[in-house]
């Protein structure tokens, strides 16, 4: 079947989609967006977290046909999504909706964090939460990072000054097997602090 939906602010069309296929598979294998990771395929690990009409969900548990006509934001579009949000917050209060510009598939596929080691991310367009993860050293193998970024970004949108308990609760559906979570906590605190300085 064919599925039409919006990905990172741009309309997309996926063809020859099998009826039992997950949104995650469509994103990775049909649209060429491997940012959302495929690990447990049962909603345990959160590494495939995307936003579906603004709501964080495990894309491995959404049937492809269910996203027809709906809006998905993946980690590839997170920087643009955050930029749009910051812009719209300046004009008309908070709004999570992606703007008109969005991230094209080509841009998203070509996306990479340039630089290495301490220079990672230099010159690349990052969302504040992505930058905070790099600055706090919250990324080790990186596999869980995209899901954590999407979940953390959504929490900071809802709750600009989260307590540690709020952060732990919001990220409780995202497993990381490297970091022990302390650096991830640091990163989210850092992103929250920077966000509040800006206001």
């Amino acid at each position: 079947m064919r599925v039409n939906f919006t990905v990172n602010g741009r309309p997309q069309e996926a063809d020859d989609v099998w009826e039992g296929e997950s949104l995650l598979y469509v994103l990775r294998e049909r649209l060429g967006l491997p940012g959302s990771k495929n690990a447990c395929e049962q909603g345990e690990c959160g590494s495939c977290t995307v936003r579906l009409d603004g709501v964080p969900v495990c894309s491995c548990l959404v049937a492809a046909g269910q996203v027809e006509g709906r809006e998905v934001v993946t980690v590839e579009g997170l920087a643009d999504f955050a930029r749009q949000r910051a812009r719209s917050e300046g004009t008309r209060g908070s709004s999570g909706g992606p703007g008109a510009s969005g991230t094209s598939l080509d841009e998203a596929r070509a996306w990479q964090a340039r630089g290495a080691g301490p220079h990672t991310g230099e010159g690349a367009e990052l969302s504040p939460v992505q930058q905070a993860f790099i600055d706090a050293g919250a990324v080790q193998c990186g596999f869980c990072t995209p899901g954590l970024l999407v979940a953390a970004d959504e929490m900071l949108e809802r709750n600009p000054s989260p307590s540690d308990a709020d952060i732990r609760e919001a990220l409780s559906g995202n497993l990381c097997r490297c970091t022990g979570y302390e650096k991830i906590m640091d990163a989210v605190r850092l992103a929250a602090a920077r966000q509040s300085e800006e206001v």
Partner: protein
Amino acid sequence: MDFLRPASWEEALAAKAEHPTAVPIAGGTDVMVEINFDHRRPEYLLDLNRVGELHEWEAGEDSVRLGASVPYAKIMEHLRAELPGLALASHTVASPQIRNRGGVGGNLGTASPAGDAHPALLAAGAEVEAESAARGARRIPIDDFYTGVKRNALAPDELIRAVHVKKADGPQQYSKVGTRNAMVIAVCAFGLALHPETRTVRTGIGSAAPTPVRARAAEEFLNAALQEGGFWDNGKVITPSVAKQFAQLCSAACNPIDDVRGTAGYRRHAVGVMARRTLTWTWESYRGARNASKGAA
């Protein structure tokens, strides 16, 4: 496989009547796992996400009509006062991502003994609103709904439209045993609701029998003990021997198995502990509310 996408409730019923083997999918948090792991290859998937009314709820005089697809996150956010037991149970479901998608309709459809909502529904008192194109709507009392391991009272052409849960008339509690707080399938779970209006208590036990069950003998014992001692009126502390006997009877209501999550013996024991604790919590809350209203009068 065919993907059926009804745009309305009527279309959904028609599709289910035409294809009784169609597997309904809403939040997908059970169905997609089975498909991803190749445990299930349904001929038809019946997507209910486009049926908007399933995501709505309505608080009436005595009960809340909860649309089958209302996600747990919304129950936690909006129905804490009306359905405290179910709201507490919702909070123990998996993770934020899962609670944003999954709902009580799916829990009932899957009818796993470990479903988190069941003990809360049993304790509060609920009816499942099921409907078919051929025979219209009917209300199935929650006590008659669970018929076996992952089996329920639905006919093949029926869909769950809503659950009618009685609004709390007293304190309710929910307790669940697992190895960690998030992302855990219950080793066992327990729900307790005090119903001061009828001077009764109701219970619900999860994951400790082939189906979710009530501990009826325990309820009867406690109802009689509370009545005899005048507890509802005098608001005294529950006698330890009464709490102990209640806990033992709740343990005895279990019919558990040994599995990877826990042994039968452990489950029986843990249900007893949860029964005693939730009884203390709810009763203390009842006494507190009672004394507060007496003080105000």
